[in-house]
Protein backbone atom coordinates (compact mmCIF):
# COMPACT_ATOMS: atom_id res chain seq x y z
CA UNK A 1 0.00 0.00 0.00
CA UNK A 2 2.80 2.39 0.87
CA UNK A 3 4.43 1.41 -2.44
CA UNK A 4 1.46 2.75 -4.32
CA UNK A 5 1.55 6.08 -2.52
CA UNK A 6 5.32 6.53 -2.75
CA UNK A 7 5.34 5.49 -6.41
CA UNK A 8 2.60 7.95 -7.28
CA UNK A 9 4.61 10.59 -5.43
CA UNK A 10 7.58 9.91 -7.66
CA UNK A 11 5.44 9.91 -10.79
CA UNK A 12 3.94 13.26 -9.93
CA UNK A 13 7.49 14.68 -9.79
CA UNK A 14 9.40 15.64 -6.69
CA UNK A 15 7.46 18.86 -6.19
CA UNK A 16 4.68 17.20 -4.26
CA UNK A 17 7.16 15.34 -2.05
CA UNK A 18 8.95 18.60 -1.26
CA UNK A 19 5.64 20.29 -0.67
CA UNK A 20 4.74 17.51 1.73
CA UNK A 21 8.01 17.98 3.62
CA UNK A 22 7.47 21.74 3.73
CA UNK A 23 3.91 21.19 4.94
CA UNK A 24 5.01 18.83 7.71
CA UNK A 25 7.78 21.20 8.76
CA UNK A 26 5.41 24.15 8.88
CA UNK A 27 2.76 22.30 10.84
CA UNK A 28 5.35 20.87 13.20
CA UNK A 29 7.67 23.59 14.51
CA UNK A 30 9.40 21.05 16.76
CA UNK A 31 10.79 19.23 13.73
CA UNK A 32 12.01 22.55 12.38
CA UNK A 33 13.69 23.20 15.74
CA UNK A 34 15.31 19.75 15.54
CA UNK A 35 16.78 20.50 12.13
CA UNK A 36 18.20 23.83 13.30
CA UNK A 37 19.70 22.14 16.38
CA UNK A 38 21.24 19.63 13.99
CA UNK A 39 22.75 22.50 12.00
CA UNK A 40 24.38 23.82 15.20
CA UNK A 41 25.93 20.41 15.82
CA UNK A 42 27.24 20.19 12.26
CA UNK A 43 28.79 23.66 12.48
CA UNK A 44 30.45 22.75 15.79
CA UNK A 45 31.76 19.49 14.35
CA UNK A 46 33.11 20.98 11.11
CA UNK A 47 34.40 24.37 12.20
CA UNK A 48 34.66 23.78 15.99
CA UNK A 49 38.45 23.63 16.31
CA UNK A 50 38.91 26.90 14.40
CA UNK A 51 36.09 28.71 16.24
CA UNK A 52 37.04 28.10 19.87
CA UNK A 53 38.87 30.82 21.81
CA UNK A 54 41.44 28.54 23.57
CA UNK A 55 43.45 25.42 22.75
CA UNK A 56 41.47 22.50 24.25
CA UNK A 57 44.66 20.74 25.42
CA UNK A 58 46.76 23.62 26.82
CA UNK A 59 46.73 23.49 30.60
CA UNK A 60 47.29 26.48 32.84
CA UNK A 61 47.65 25.48 36.48
CA UNK A 62 47.38 29.07 37.72
CA UNK A 63 43.90 29.28 36.27
CA UNK A 64 42.47 25.93 37.45
CA UNK A 65 38.88 25.31 38.54
CA UNK A 66 37.59 28.82 37.74
CA UNK A 67 33.78 29.10 37.66
CA UNK A 68 32.14 30.27 34.41
CA UNK A 69 33.04 33.87 33.57
CA UNK A 70 33.18 36.16 30.56
CA UNK A 71 36.70 34.99 29.70
CA UNK A 72 35.84 31.31 30.21
CA UNK A 73 32.15 30.83 29.39
CA UNK A 74 31.98 27.32 30.81
CA UNK A 75 34.75 27.81 33.40
CA UNK A 76 38.06 25.96 33.52
CA UNK A 77 38.84 22.40 34.62
CA UNK A 78 41.29 21.08 37.19
CA UNK A 79 44.24 21.62 34.82
CA UNK A 80 43.10 25.11 33.84
CA UNK A 81 41.85 24.06 30.40
CA UNK A 82 38.91 26.00 28.97
CA UNK A 83 35.79 23.82 29.28
CA UNK A 84 33.92 25.66 26.50
CA UNK A 85 36.69 24.98 23.98
CA UNK A 86 36.89 21.33 24.99
CA UNK A 87 33.12 20.83 24.76
CA UNK A 88 32.96 22.37 21.27
CA UNK A 89 36.02 20.53 19.97
CA UNK A 90 34.71 17.21 21.31
CA UNK A 91 31.66 17.46 19.02
CA UNK A 92 33.67 16.24 16.04
CA UNK A 93 35.01 13.13 17.77
CA UNK A 94 31.66 12.16 19.31
CA UNK A 95 29.75 12.65 16.07
CA UNK A 96 32.45 10.86 14.08
CA UNK A 97 32.33 7.79 16.32
CA UNK A 98 28.57 7.50 16.18
CA UNK A 99 28.24 8.32 12.47
CA UNK A 100 30.93 5.77 11.59
CA UNK A 101 29.28 3.14 13.78
CA UNK A 102 25.80 3.78 12.41
CA UNK A 103 27.10 3.81 8.81
CA UNK A 104 28.81 0.48 9.37
CA UNK A 105 25.74 -1.14 10.87
CA UNK A 106 23.57 0.40 8.15
CA UNK A 107 25.75 -1.12 5.41
CA UNK A 108 26.21 -4.55 7.00
CA UNK A 109 22.61 -4.70 8.20
CA UNK A 110 21.29 -3.79 4.74
CA UNK A 111 23.30 -6.52 3.01
CA UNK A 112 22.51 -9.23 5.56
CA UNK A 113 18.85 -8.21 5.84
CA UNK A 114 18.40 -8.13 2.05
CA UNK A 115 19.94 -11.57 1.66
CA UNK A 116 17.81 -13.02 4.43
CA UNK A 117 14.62 -11.40 3.16
CA UNK A 118 15.11 -12.16 -0.55
CA UNK A 119 16.42 -15.71 -0.55
CA UNK A 120 14.98 -16.92 2.76
CA UNK A 121 15.52 -20.57 3.53
CA UNK A 122 18.39 -21.80 5.68
CA UNK A 123 20.44 -18.63 5.27
CA UNK A 124 17.52 -16.64 6.69
CA UNK A 125 17.24 -19.07 9.60
CA UNK A 126 20.96 -18.87 10.36
CA UNK A 127 21.03 -15.06 10.20
CA UNK A 128 17.94 -14.83 12.40
CA UNK A 129 19.58 -17.04 15.01
CA UNK A 130 22.65 -14.81 14.87
CA UNK A 131 20.60 -11.66 15.44
CA UNK A 132 18.65 -13.37 18.23
CA UNK A 133 21.94 -14.18 19.90
CA UNK A 134 23.19 -10.60 19.66
CA UNK A 135 19.89 -9.32 21.03
CA UNK A 136 20.08 -11.85 23.87
CA UNK A 137 22.88 -9.80 25.41
CA UNK A 138 22.18 -6.58 27.25
CA UNK A 139 23.56 -4.45 24.42
CA UNK A 140 25.77 -2.07 26.40
CA UNK A 141 27.27 -5.04 28.23
CA UNK A 142 28.02 -6.80 24.93
CA UNK A 143 29.72 -3.64 23.67
CA UNK A 144 31.85 -3.65 26.84
CA UNK A 145 32.79 -7.27 26.24
CA UNK A 146 33.70 -6.66 22.60
CA UNK A 147 35.90 -3.67 23.43
CA UNK A 148 37.55 -5.62 26.24
CA UNK A 149 38.24 -8.55 23.91
CA UNK A 150 39.42 -6.61 20.85
CA UNK A 151 41.47 -4.05 22.72
CA UNK A 152 40.89 -0.65 24.17
CA UNK A 153 40.89 1.72 21.16
CA UNK A 154 38.53 4.21 19.55
CA UNK A 155 38.16 2.01 16.43
CA UNK A 156 37.00 -0.87 18.56
CA UNK A 157 34.36 1.37 20.17
CA UNK A 158 33.08 2.02 16.65
CA UNK A 159 33.06 -1.71 15.80
CA UNK A 160 31.35 -2.64 19.06
CA UNK A 161 28.66 0.03 18.62
CA UNK A 162 28.16 -1.13 15.03
CA UNK A 163 27.78 -4.80 15.99
CA UNK A 164 25.11 -4.15 18.60
CA UNK A 165 23.11 -2.04 16.12
CA UNK A 166 23.23 -4.45 13.15
CA UNK A 167 20.20 -6.55 14.18
CA UNK A 168 17.89 -3.49 14.17
CA UNK A 169 18.77 -2.61 10.57
CA UNK A 170 18.92 -6.18 9.32
CA UNK A 171 15.47 -7.00 10.72
CA UNK A 172 13.95 -3.84 9.27
CA UNK A 173 15.40 -4.49 5.80
CA UNK A 174 14.50 -8.16 5.97
CA UNK A 175 10.86 -7.35 6.64
CA UNK A 176 10.69 -4.68 3.93
CA UNK A 177 12.40 -6.90 1.34
CA UNK A 178 10.41 -9.97 2.26
CA UNK A 179 6.98 -8.39 1.68
CA UNK A 180 8.06 -7.09 -1.76
CA UNK A 181 9.88 -10.19 -2.96
CA UNK A 182 6.86 -11.47 -4.89
CA UNK A 183 5.32 -8.10 -5.71
CA UNK A 184 4.40 -7.13 -9.27
CA UNK A 185 7.18 -4.65 -9.92
CA UNK A 186 9.85 -7.05 -8.66
CA UNK A 187 8.55 -9.90 -10.81
CA UNK A 188 8.31 -7.58 -13.82
CA UNK A 189 11.91 -6.48 -13.34
CA UNK A 190 12.95 -10.11 -13.03
CA UNK A 191 11.01 -11.00 -16.18
CA UNK A 192 12.72 -8.34 -18.25
CA UNK A 193 16.00 -10.10 -17.65
CA UNK A 194 17.50 -8.44 -14.57
CA UNK A 195 19.60 -10.62 -12.30
CA UNK A 196 18.45 -11.36 -8.75
CA UNK A 197 21.05 -9.05 -7.27
CA UNK A 198 20.10 -6.22 -9.60
CA UNK A 199 16.40 -6.58 -8.80
CA UNK A 200 17.19 -6.72 -5.10
CA UNK A 201 19.57 -3.76 -5.05
CA UNK A 202 17.87 -1.39 -7.50
CA UNK A 203 14.19 -2.31 -7.34
CA UNK A 204 13.38 -3.75 -3.94
CA UNK A 205 15.94 -2.34 -1.50
CA UNK A 206 15.24 1.37 -2.21
CA UNK A 207 11.75 0.83 -0.79
CA UNK A 208 13.31 0.10 2.56
CA UNK A 209 15.20 3.40 2.66
CA UNK A 210 12.52 5.70 4.18
CA UNK A 211 12.00 3.62 7.35
CA UNK A 212 15.78 3.10 7.44
CA UNK A 213 16.37 6.86 7.58
CA UNK A 214 14.11 7.13 10.62
CA UNK A 215 16.02 4.29 12.24
CA UNK A 216 19.34 5.99 11.43
CA UNK A 217 18.30 9.20 13.11
CA UNK A 218 17.01 7.51 16.26
CA UNK A 219 20.05 5.26 16.26
CA UNK A 220 22.57 8.10 16.02
CA UNK A 221 21.45 9.46 19.36
CA UNK A 222 21.66 6.04 20.88
CA UNK A 223 25.12 5.44 19.39
CA UNK A 224 26.40 8.70 20.88
CA UNK A 225 25.06 7.70 24.30
CA UNK A 226 26.65 4.30 23.95
CA UNK A 227 30.06 5.61 22.89
CA UNK A 228 30.05 8.26 25.62
CA UNK A 229 29.03 5.60 28.15
CA UNK A 230 31.93 3.40 27.12
CA UNK A 231 34.43 6.23 27.43
CA UNK A 232 32.82 7.22 30.75
CA UNK A 233 33.87 3.85 32.21
CA UNK A 234 37.36 4.31 30.78
CA UNK A 235 37.15 2.46 27.46
CA UNK A 236 38.28 3.77 24.08
CA UNK A 237 39.04 7.46 24.26
CA UNK A 238 42.03 8.27 26.47
CA UNK A 239 42.69 11.50 28.33
CA UNK A 240 43.63 14.24 27.60
CA UNK A 241 41.51 13.91 24.42
CA UNK A 242 38.39 16.08 24.60
CA UNK A 243 35.32 13.80 24.53
CA UNK A 244 32.01 14.33 26.29
CA UNK A 245 31.84 11.00 28.15
CA UNK A 246 35.34 11.21 29.52
CA UNK A 247 34.86 14.87 30.48
CA UNK A 248 31.79 13.98 32.53
CA UNK A 249 33.79 11.16 34.14
CA UNK A 250 36.61 13.55 35.07
CA UNK A 251 34.18 16.22 36.20
CA UNK A 252 32.25 13.76 38.38
CA UNK A 253 35.21 13.73 40.79
CA UNK A 254 34.71 17.43 41.47
CA UNK A 255 30.93 17.43 41.77
CA UNK A 256 30.98 16.51 45.49
CA UNK A 257 33.08 19.59 46.19
CA UNK A 258 30.74 21.82 44.22
CA UNK A 259 32.63 22.44 40.95
CA UNK A 260 29.59 21.62 38.83
CA UNK A 261 30.67 23.18 35.53
CA UNK A 262 33.27 20.50 34.79
CA UNK A 263 30.70 17.75 34.36
CA UNK A 264 27.59 19.78 33.60
CA UNK A 265 28.53 21.36 30.26
CA UNK A 266 29.88 18.25 28.49
CA UNK A 267 26.91 16.30 29.86
CA UNK A 268 24.56 18.98 28.61
CA UNK A 269 26.20 18.89 25.17
CA UNK A 270 25.73 15.14 25.09
CA UNK A 271 22.08 15.52 26.04
CA UNK A 272 21.62 18.22 23.41
CA UNK A 273 23.02 15.96 20.68
CA UNK A 274 20.94 12.94 21.66
CA UNK A 275 17.83 15.07 22.04
CA UNK A 276 18.39 16.54 18.57
CA UNK A 277 18.66 13.14 16.93
CA UNK A 278 15.62 11.81 18.76
CA UNK A 279 13.50 14.82 17.81
CA UNK A 280 14.72 14.53 14.23
CA UNK A 281 13.89 10.85 14.15
CA UNK A 282 10.34 11.54 15.35
CA UNK A 283 10.01 14.33 12.79
CA UNK A 284 11.32 12.15 9.97
CA UNK A 285 8.87 9.46 10.97
CA UNK A 286 6.02 11.95 10.59
CA UNK A 287 7.27 12.83 7.11
CA UNK A 288 7.87 9.23 6.03
CA UNK A 289 4.93 7.47 7.62
CA UNK A 290 2.25 9.56 9.30
CA UNK A 291 0.45 6.44 10.51
CA UNK A 292 3.18 5.46 12.95
CA UNK A 293 2.77 8.59 15.04
CA UNK A 294 2.23 7.84 18.73
Amino acid at each position, binding site marked *: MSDATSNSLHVKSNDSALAHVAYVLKSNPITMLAFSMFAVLIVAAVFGPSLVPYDPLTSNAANALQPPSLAHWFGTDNLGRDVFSRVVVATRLDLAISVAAVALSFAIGSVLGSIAGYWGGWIDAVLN*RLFDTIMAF*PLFVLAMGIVAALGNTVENIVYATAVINIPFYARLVRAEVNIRRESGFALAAKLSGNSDIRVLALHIFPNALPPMMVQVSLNLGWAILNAAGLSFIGLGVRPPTAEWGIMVAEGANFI*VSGEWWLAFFPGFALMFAVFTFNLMGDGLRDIVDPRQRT
Partner: protein
Amino acid sequence: MSGRLATVGYRIAHAIPVILGVVVVSFLLTRALPGDPAVYFAGPAADEASIAQIRTALGLDKSLPEQFFVYAGDVLSGDLGQSISTGQPVLSDLANRLPASLELTLTALLLSCAIAIPLGVLAATRPGTTVDHLCRVLVTAGVSLPTFFTGVVLIYVFYYLLGIAPSPLGRLDFIYIEPDHVTGFYLIDAAIAGDWETWIGAVKQLILPAITLALFTLAPLARMTRAAMLSALSSDYIRTARAAGLTENKVLFTYAFRNALLPVITTLGMVFSFTLGANVLVEKVFAWPGIGSYAVEALVVSDYAAVQGFVLAMALLFVALNLIIDIAYTLIDPRIGFETR
Protein backbone atom coordinates in the same frame (compact mmCIF):
# COMPACT_ATOMS: atom_id res chain seq x y z
CA MET B 1 -4.78 -25.98 30.10
CA SER B 2 -2.66 -28.58 28.33
CA GLY B 3 -2.41 -26.20 25.40
CA ARG B 4 -0.95 -23.62 27.73
CA LEU B 5 1.51 -26.04 29.24
CA ALA B 6 2.63 -26.95 25.74
CA THR B 7 3.16 -23.26 24.98
CA VAL B 8 5.23 -22.83 28.14
CA GLY B 9 7.29 -25.88 27.16
CA TYR B 10 7.72 -24.50 23.67
CA ARG B 11 8.98 -21.18 25.06
CA ILE B 12 11.49 -22.95 27.29
CA ALA B 13 12.70 -25.07 24.37
CA HIS B 14 12.99 -21.90 22.33
CA ALA B 15 15.45 -20.44 24.87
CA ILE B 16 17.93 -23.30 24.48
CA PRO B 17 19.41 -22.28 21.09
CA VAL B 18 19.67 -18.71 22.37
CA ILE B 19 21.61 -19.87 25.44
CA LEU B 20 23.87 -21.93 23.17
CA GLY B 21 24.44 -18.87 20.98
CA VAL B 22 25.29 -16.78 24.03
CA VAL B 23 27.87 -19.33 25.16
CA VAL B 24 29.38 -19.49 21.65
CA VAL B 25 29.66 -15.69 21.47
CA SER B 26 31.25 -15.43 24.89
CA PHE B 27 33.66 -18.23 23.93
CA LEU B 28 34.65 -16.28 20.82
CA LEU B 29 35.16 -13.18 22.98
CA THR B 30 37.51 -15.07 25.31
CA ARG B 31 39.52 -16.30 22.31
CA ALA B 32 39.71 -12.87 20.73
CA LEU B 33 42.06 -11.57 23.43
CA PRO B 34 44.66 -9.25 21.92
CA GLY B 35 47.80 -11.27 21.27
CA ASP B 36 48.38 -14.78 22.53
CA PRO B 37 46.29 -15.55 25.67
CA ALA B 38 48.99 -17.96 26.87
CA VAL B 39 51.62 -15.20 26.78
CA TYR B 40 49.19 -12.91 28.57
CA PHE B 41 48.32 -15.37 31.36
CA ALA B 42 51.95 -16.45 31.79
CA GLY B 43 52.92 -12.92 32.78
CA PRO B 44 55.75 -10.67 31.59
CA ALA B 45 58.59 -12.70 33.14
CA ALA B 46 57.71 -16.01 31.45
CA ASP B 47 60.09 -17.88 29.15
CA GLU B 48 59.25 -20.17 26.21
CA ALA B 49 58.90 -23.29 28.34
CA SER B 50 56.49 -21.80 30.86
CA ILE B 51 54.41 -20.25 28.08
CA ALA B 52 54.12 -23.66 26.43
CA GLN B 53 53.21 -25.13 29.81
CA ILE B 54 50.47 -22.53 30.32
CA ARG B 55 49.24 -23.15 26.79
CA THR B 56 48.80 -26.84 27.59
CA ALA B 57 47.26 -26.05 30.95
CA LEU B 58 44.72 -23.71 29.37
CA GLY B 59 44.05 -26.19 26.58
CA LEU B 60 45.07 -23.68 23.92
CA ASP B 61 47.04 -26.31 21.99
CA LYS B 62 43.80 -28.11 21.14
CA SER B 63 41.66 -27.38 18.08
CA LEU B 64 39.02 -24.62 18.33
CA PRO B 65 35.97 -26.98 18.53
CA GLU B 66 37.71 -29.01 21.25
CA GLN B 67 38.47 -25.80 23.12
CA PHE B 68 34.83 -24.85 22.83
CA PHE B 69 33.66 -28.09 24.43
CA VAL B 70 36.13 -27.64 27.28
CA TYR B 71 34.86 -24.06 27.72
CA ALA B 72 31.20 -25.13 27.60
CA GLY B 73 31.94 -27.85 30.15
CA ASP B 74 33.57 -25.29 32.44
CA VAL B 75 30.59 -22.95 32.11
CA LEU B 76 28.20 -25.81 32.85
CA SER B 77 30.08 -26.69 36.03
CA GLY B 78 30.12 -23.01 37.02
CA ASP B 79 33.82 -22.43 36.42
CA LEU B 80 34.25 -18.98 34.89
CA GLY B 81 37.96 -18.79 35.65
CA GLN B 82 39.97 -16.92 38.25
CA SER B 83 39.93 -13.18 38.69
CA ILE B 84 43.46 -11.76 38.62
CA SER B 85 42.64 -8.69 40.70
CA THR B 86 40.74 -10.35 43.57
CA GLY B 87 42.33 -13.80 43.37
CA GLN B 88 38.89 -15.37 43.79
CA PRO B 89 36.92 -17.51 41.33
CA VAL B 90 34.92 -15.16 39.11
CA LEU B 91 31.68 -16.99 39.87
CA SER B 92 31.90 -16.42 43.63
CA ASP B 93 32.85 -12.77 43.08
CA LEU B 94 29.81 -12.30 40.88
CA ALA B 95 27.54 -14.16 43.30
CA ASN B 96 28.74 -11.95 46.18
CA ARG B 97 28.05 -8.76 44.30
CA LEU B 98 24.89 -9.73 42.44
CA PRO B 99 22.41 -8.92 45.27
CA ALA B 100 23.62 -5.29 45.36
CA SER B 101 22.97 -4.91 41.63
CA LEU B 102 19.63 -6.70 41.75
CA GLU B 103 18.45 -4.62 44.72
CA LEU B 104 19.24 -1.44 42.79
CA THR B 105 17.77 -2.64 39.49
CA LEU B 106 14.55 -4.01 40.94
CA THR B 107 13.94 -0.94 43.12
CA ALA B 108 14.48 1.27 40.08
CA LEU B 109 12.13 -0.79 37.92
CA LEU B 110 9.41 -0.83 40.59
CA LEU B 111 9.78 2.93 40.97
CA SER B 112 9.60 3.57 37.25
CA CYS B 113 6.60 1.25 36.76
CA ALA B 114 4.84 3.00 39.63
CA ILE B 115 5.29 6.35 37.88
CA ALA B 116 5.21 5.43 34.19
CA ILE B 117 2.10 3.25 34.07
CA PRO B 118 -0.28 5.67 35.84
CA LEU B 119 1.23 8.53 33.83
CA GLY B 120 0.70 6.68 30.56
CA VAL B 121 -2.88 5.78 31.47
CA LEU B 122 -3.67 9.36 32.49
CA ALA B 123 -2.13 10.72 29.29
CA ALA B 124 -4.14 8.31 27.16
CA THR B 125 -7.45 9.01 28.88
CA ARG B 126 -6.97 12.78 28.78
CA PRO B 127 -5.31 13.48 25.42
CA GLY B 128 -4.28 17.07 24.80
CA THR B 129 -4.28 18.07 28.47
CA THR B 130 -1.38 19.07 30.72
CA VAL B 131 -0.84 15.46 31.77
CA ASP B 132 -0.52 14.42 28.14
CA HIS B 133 2.03 17.14 27.40
CA LEU B 134 3.95 16.35 30.60
CA CYS B 135 4.05 12.72 29.50
CA ARG B 136 5.35 13.67 26.06
CA VAL B 137 8.07 15.95 27.47
CA LEU B 138 9.17 13.30 29.98
CA VAL B 139 9.26 10.63 27.28
CA THR B 140 11.40 12.64 24.88
CA ALA B 141 13.68 14.05 27.57
CA GLY B 142 13.98 10.68 29.32
CA VAL B 143 15.44 8.84 26.33
CA SER B 144 17.93 11.65 25.74
CA LEU B 145 19.35 11.68 29.26
CA PRO B 146 22.70 9.97 29.65
CA THR B 147 22.28 7.97 32.88
CA PHE B 148 25.70 8.85 34.20
CA PHE B 149 24.98 12.54 33.67
CA THR B 150 21.61 12.37 35.48
CA GLY B 151 23.40 10.68 38.36
CA VAL B 152 26.03 13.41 38.57
CA VAL B 153 23.39 16.16 38.47
CA LEU B 154 21.33 14.45 41.20
CA ILE B 155 24.43 14.15 43.40
CA TYR B 156 25.17 17.84 42.90
CA VAL B 157 21.64 18.95 43.75
CA PHE B 158 20.76 16.58 46.60
CA TYR B 159 24.17 16.02 48.17
CA TYR B 160 26.11 19.24 47.59
CA LEU B 161 23.42 21.94 47.32
CA LEU B 162 20.61 20.65 49.53
CA GLY B 163 22.60 18.31 51.76
CA ILE B 164 19.68 15.86 52.02
CA ALA B 165 21.34 12.83 50.45
CA PRO B 166 24.22 10.96 52.09
CA SER B 167 27.59 10.88 50.33
CA PRO B 168 27.35 8.78 47.16
CA LEU B 169 29.71 6.04 48.29
CA GLY B 170 28.26 2.57 48.27
CA ARG B 171 25.29 0.81 49.83
CA LEU B 172 25.59 1.87 53.44
CA ASP B 173 27.23 4.73 55.30
CA PHE B 174 30.10 3.57 57.50
CA ILE B 175 28.25 4.55 60.69
CA TYR B 176 25.84 1.65 60.17
CA ILE B 177 26.73 -2.01 60.57
CA GLU B 178 25.92 -4.31 57.68
CA PRO B 179 22.86 -6.46 58.41
CA ASP B 180 23.42 -10.22 58.72
CA HIS B 181 23.62 -11.89 55.34
CA VAL B 182 20.35 -13.69 54.58
CA THR B 183 19.32 -12.67 51.07
CA GLY B 184 22.07 -10.12 50.38
CA PHE B 185 19.40 -7.45 49.83
CA TYR B 186 20.11 -4.91 52.57
CA LEU B 187 16.51 -3.72 52.74
CA ILE B 188 15.21 -7.26 53.27
CA ASP B 189 18.05 -8.33 55.57
CA ALA B 190 17.69 -5.26 57.78
CA ALA B 191 13.92 -5.77 57.94
CA ILE B 192 14.41 -9.43 58.93
CA ALA B 193 16.84 -8.39 61.66
CA GLY B 194 14.36 -5.71 62.76
CA ASP B 195 17.09 -3.08 62.53
CA TRP B 196 15.07 -0.15 61.20
CA GLU B 197 17.84 2.38 61.68
CA THR B 198 20.02 0.46 59.25
CA TRP B 199 17.03 0.00 56.96
CA ILE B 200 16.53 3.76 56.73
CA GLY B 201 20.27 4.21 56.18
CA ALA B 202 20.16 1.71 53.31
CA VAL B 203 17.11 3.40 51.77
CA LYS B 204 18.87 6.77 51.90
CA GLN B 205 21.83 5.36 49.97
CA LEU B 206 19.58 3.54 47.52
CA ILE B 207 17.23 6.34 46.62
CA LEU B 208 19.44 8.49 44.37
CA PRO B 209 20.88 5.68 42.21
CA ALA B 210 17.41 4.13 41.97
CA ILE B 211 15.91 7.44 40.80
CA THR B 212 18.70 7.81 38.25
CA LEU B 213 17.96 4.39 36.78
CA ALA B 214 14.22 4.90 37.01
CA LEU B 215 14.36 8.18 35.07
CA PHE B 216 16.13 6.28 32.33
CA THR B 217 13.55 3.49 32.10
CA LEU B 218 10.54 5.75 32.58
CA ALA B 219 10.40 6.91 28.98
CA PRO B 220 9.87 3.65 27.05
CA LEU B 221 7.39 2.39 29.64
CA ALA B 222 5.29 5.55 29.70
CA ARG B 223 5.36 5.75 25.93
CA MET B 224 4.24 2.17 25.51
CA THR B 225 1.52 2.43 28.17
CA ARG B 226 0.12 5.52 26.53
CA ALA B 227 0.13 3.99 23.03
CA ALA B 228 -1.31 0.65 24.18
CA MET B 229 -3.99 2.37 26.25
CA LEU B 230 -4.96 4.60 23.32
CA SER B 231 -5.33 1.67 20.96
CA ALA B 232 -7.28 -0.33 23.55
CA LEU B 233 -9.63 2.61 24.18
CA SER B 234 -10.41 2.98 20.47
CA SER B 235 -11.28 -0.70 20.04
CA ASP B 236 -14.68 -2.24 19.45
CA TYR B 237 -14.95 -4.05 22.77
CA ILE B 238 -14.58 -0.78 24.65
CA ARG B 239 -17.31 0.77 22.52
CA THR B 240 -19.49 -2.24 23.30
CA ALA B 241 -18.68 -2.02 27.01
CA ARG B 242 -19.58 1.69 27.04
CA ALA B 243 -22.76 1.01 25.07
CA ALA B 244 -23.73 -1.65 27.60
CA GLY B 245 -23.64 1.10 30.22
CA LEU B 246 -20.70 -0.04 32.31
CA THR B 247 -19.19 2.54 34.62
CA GLU B 248 -16.16 4.45 33.34
CA ASN B 249 -13.90 2.86 35.97
CA LYS B 250 -15.02 -0.62 35.03
CA VAL B 251 -14.40 0.11 31.34
CA LEU B 252 -11.00 1.68 32.01
CA PHE B 253 -9.52 -0.79 34.43
CA THR B 254 -11.23 -4.11 33.79
CA TYR B 255 -11.38 -3.93 30.00
CA ALA B 256 -8.92 -1.39 28.59
CA PHE B 257 -6.10 -1.56 31.13
CA ARG B 258 -5.85 -5.34 31.26
CA ASN B 259 -5.51 -5.51 27.50
CA ALA B 260 -3.11 -2.58 27.38
CA LEU B 261 -0.88 -4.28 29.94
CA LEU B 262 0.25 -6.97 27.48
CA PRO B 263 2.43 -4.82 25.19
CA VAL B 264 3.73 -3.03 28.30
CA ILE B 265 4.99 -6.33 29.69
CA THR B 266 6.74 -7.01 26.39
CA THR B 267 8.41 -3.60 26.61
CA LEU B 268 9.51 -4.45 30.13
CA GLY B 269 11.81 -7.11 28.66
CA MET B 270 13.51 -4.58 26.43
CA VAL B 271 13.72 -2.10 29.28
CA PHE B 272 15.52 -4.74 31.33
CA SER B 273 18.23 -4.93 28.69
CA PHE B 274 18.75 -1.17 28.92
CA THR B 275 18.69 -1.28 32.71
CA LEU B 276 21.33 -3.99 32.95
CA GLY B 277 23.58 -1.87 30.70
CA ALA B 278 22.82 1.41 32.45
CA ASN B 279 23.43 -0.31 35.77
CA VAL B 280 27.15 -0.40 34.97
CA LEU B 281 27.25 3.38 34.55
CA VAL B 282 25.08 4.17 37.59
CA GLU B 283 27.11 1.83 39.79
CA LYS B 284 30.27 3.65 38.74
CA VAL B 285 28.80 7.08 39.51
CA PHE B 286 27.54 6.06 42.96
CA ALA B 287 30.42 3.69 43.82
CA TRP B 288 27.78 0.99 44.23
CA PRO B 289 29.48 -2.36 44.97
CA GLY B 290 27.54 -4.40 42.40
CA ILE B 291 28.64 -6.56 39.50
CA GLY B 292 28.70 -3.57 37.15
CA SER B 293 31.38 -1.74 39.10
CA TYR B 294 33.17 -5.09 39.50
CA ALA B 295 33.35 -5.34 35.71
CA VAL B 296 34.54 -1.74 35.38
CA GLU B 297 37.30 -2.30 37.96
CA ALA B 298 38.28 -5.49 36.13
CA LEU B 299 38.39 -3.65 32.80
CA VAL B 300 40.76 -1.04 34.19
CA VAL B 301 43.32 -3.70 35.23
CA SER B 302 42.68 -5.86 32.10
CA ASP B 303 41.26 -8.70 34.18
CA TYR B 304 39.69 -10.46 31.19
CA ALA B 305 38.31 -13.55 32.92
CA ALA B 306 36.28 -11.31 35.23
CA VAL B 307 34.95 -9.12 32.40
CA GLN B 308 33.96 -12.08 30.27
CA GLY B 309 32.38 -13.85 33.22
CA PHE B 310 30.38 -10.69 33.83
CA VAL B 311 29.24 -10.46 30.19
CA LEU B 312 28.18 -14.11 30.17
CA ALA B 313 26.41 -13.80 33.52
CA MET B 314 24.49 -10.70 32.39
CA ALA B 315 23.46 -12.39 29.13
CA LEU B 316 22.22 -15.50 30.94
CA LEU B 317 20.39 -13.34 33.48
CA PHE B 318 18.74 -11.44 30.63
CA VAL B 319 17.74 -14.63 28.78
CA ALA B 320 16.25 -15.99 32.01
CA LEU B 321 14.31 -12.77 32.63
CA ASN B 322 12.96 -12.75 29.09
CA LEU B 323 11.88 -16.35 29.52
CA ILE B 324 10.06 -15.48 32.74
CA ILE B 325 8.36 -12.53 31.04
CA ASP B 326 7.38 -14.73 28.10
CA ILE B 327 5.89 -17.35 30.39
CA ALA B 328 4.11 -14.71 32.48
CA TYR B 329 2.71 -13.36 29.23
CA THR B 330 1.43 -16.80 28.30
CA LEU B 331 -0.29 -17.10 31.66
CA ILE B 332 -1.81 -13.61 31.56
CA ASP B 333 -3.09 -13.64 28.00
CA PRO B 334 -5.77 -16.32 27.66
CA ARG B 335 -5.60 -16.19 23.87
CA ILE B 336 -2.08 -17.65 23.77
CA GLY B 337 -1.94 -21.42 23.93
CA PHE B 338 -5.49 -22.00 22.73
CA GLU B 339 -4.75 -21.14 19.14
CA THR B 340 -3.94 -24.10 16.94
CA ARG B 341 -0.30 -24.09 16.11
